[in-house]
């Protein structure tokens, strides 16, 4: 087994009066996409900052490329911060060239690569413009390019899809999948579970600084089993309150996703639903990550 690209061992970070991350351990294998999940304020950004050496853990260890963290590693890392991390007054192309240069590229290579990327991400017309003239989504794309310009082996992105419309989100997703094909390792954080579900090989779920779930996505889902039912109906919804059948439910408006109580029979539920409502759809599904998250967090909170 190859040594993991990123490895966290019992990492802890506390600020003045609160603990941002506690006892966080996971590893990311080369060539995989890893998702760091959690609601706002869970400690995702704090974890990422420790992985690129902006902050230092109070306890535990961060290892990159099989060695304890050192600044030299950063040449091989591409980082995209949460929100915008660009000079507002600087022109797009010049900015990219500068950011490429400080990562060791020479000016000519940096410019050539920046141009190529801008064309790829439909930013070519904006290269001579100042960053502040760009929309938030376009700035995010510039930031995205800046992280990839020096062809890093490890790409770390803090909320890369925030503020992007679906078209651009797909564009960036495709780029990331390509990078994975090229053998790069990708770690990104998000609070949007649906994106992770489509892309990640493994995940780590954190809540209030605590690691609540970690591992390969497939295994996690298998562990949860096909205990979920998606129901589309019209009429009486009182069956949702039957605690003998349902452990929990999540109302999405158009449909509800329910989790069966342990030992409960799906057929029995179907009967009960159809007694008071018109059923359009009744499907046994793998739990969505969101469902799992709500389950787990609900449990820890209780």
């Amino acid at each position: 087994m190859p040594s993991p690209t990123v490895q966290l061992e019992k990492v802890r970070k506390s600020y003045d009066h609160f603990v941002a991350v506690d006892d966080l351990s996971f590893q990311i294998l080369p060539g995989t996409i890893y998702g760091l999940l959690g609601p706002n304020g869970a400690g995702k950004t704090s974890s990422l900052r420790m992985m690129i050496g902006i902050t230092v853990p109070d306890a535990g260890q961060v290892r990159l490329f099989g060695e304890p963290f050192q600044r030299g590693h950063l040449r091989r890392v591409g980082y995209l911060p949460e929100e915008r991390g660009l000079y507002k007054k600087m022109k797009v192309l010049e900015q990219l060239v500068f950011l490429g240069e400080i990562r060791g590229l020479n000016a000519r290579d940096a410019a050539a690569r920046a141009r190529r990327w801008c064309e790829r991400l439909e930013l070519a017309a904006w290269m001579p413009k100042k960053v502040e003239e760009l929309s938030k989504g376009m700035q995010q794309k510039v930031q995205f390019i800046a992280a990839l310009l020096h062809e890093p082996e490890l790409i770390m992105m803090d909320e890369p899809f925030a503020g992007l419309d679906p078209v651009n989100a797909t564009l960036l997703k495709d780029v990331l999948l390509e990078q994975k094909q090229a053998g790069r390792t990708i770690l990104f954080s998000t609070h949007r579970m649906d994106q992770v579900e489509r892309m990640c090989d493994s995940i780590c779920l954190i809540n209030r600084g605590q690691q609540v779930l970690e591992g390969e996505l497939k295994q996690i889902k298998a562990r949860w089993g096909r205990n979920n039912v998606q129901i589309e109906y019209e009429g009486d919804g009182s069956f949702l309150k039957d605690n003998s059948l349902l452990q929990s439910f999540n109302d999405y408006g158009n449909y509800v996703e329910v989790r069966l109580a342990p030992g409960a029979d799906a057929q029995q539920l179907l009967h009960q639903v159809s007694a008071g409502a018109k059923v359009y759809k009744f499907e046994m599904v793998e739990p969505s990550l969101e469902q799992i998250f709500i389950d787990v967090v609900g449990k820890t909170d209780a």
Partner: protein
Amino acid sequence: MRNVWLVIQREYLEKVRTKAFLFTTMFIPALMGLSIFLPTKMATMKSNKVTHIVVVASSQATGDAIRSQLAERSQDIGGKYAVDVDLTASDAERAALAAKVKGGELDGFLWATDDALTARSVTYTARNVSDFFEAAVLKSAVTMARMQSRLTRHGVGAQELQDILKSVDIKVETGEKKSSGEFMFIFTFILGAMLFTTVLVYGISVMRSVLEEKNSRVMEVLLSALTPKELMAGKIIGVAAVGLTQIAIWAALGAVLGGPYALAARGALQGVSIPPATLIFFAVFFLLGYLLYSSMYAALGALVSTDQEGQQLQIVVMGPLLFAYLMMFGVLRQPNATFSLVLSLVPFFAPLLMYMRIMVQPPPAWQVALSIALMVATIYGMVSLCARIYRIGILMYGKRPTLPEIWKWLRYT
């Protein structure tokens, strides 16, 4: 090193290309030019004016004497007098003249009858009575005219009279060594003024530059590629270079525009030679002082989280410079006193005080070398300090540090 250079480059090019830079570079010389040009223009405008006055005298000779004296003296203040002599010294005439002055036909009249002259009390009635130069010219003209007529009456010949009344030239000479020192200390004040203004303008600029990154996430991107020390050193030098560029542009402009005048005035400055060491030390101390204070502003920028906060705390940074400025007089008077030695070695005061000592009475070479070494070391220390504050300060977004926290940060590795 490469990274520092890249940061310098970016900082420099970004700042030099702003409209603000262009504006201040052009506006300030224009303002200075105007402030020199306008008063000169106003003075010359006045010189073309002819002041029309009437001299009321008891005899034509007295009147003529006053007229010729006035003609001679008026050149000094760059004006011209048209003088009419009036021999009717009556109250009615006085009233008539006063009316004329009031009506604007006449600029003024001088009541210089023999009685008035004997009493040494001559009256000048005019519309504009606030011009001191004019009063002084009239006074000396009348005094000379009075002397002239008295001497003539005592039988002094015209030739001798002229000789007596001719003014004596005073040649101002300076003793060799000491005077050059007295002249040279001016350079320290120039240095002080330059340091003050440049630090004020560009210190704020460094501070903003540091703040800008801190408040956006740019620094996260930068710090994943640069060390804080590289970033800080690059910023301080880059912004300093912008200030130096502006000064260089002004100096070049000054040389082009003021050069011909300076050449013309060379005669007046003859005998004054500026030793090259004066200028070299000027450059060295200015540069070091500028970098030192810039780095202090950078530290301030790293410490605070908003512009306003930084402006409020500015006084802490400017304080030492202000203090040094005030101490210059003391050092000027006693360049070899112990307090002068001690103060001139303190890096924050050295740019002004050590330079002052060099100008007034050159101290031993080791003291100069020591002060320069101390300044260089302090600048390096400041940069490390900035980097450290910056490094740790960014962990606390938008939170104002307390003093114990700052202390904690400084000891944090």
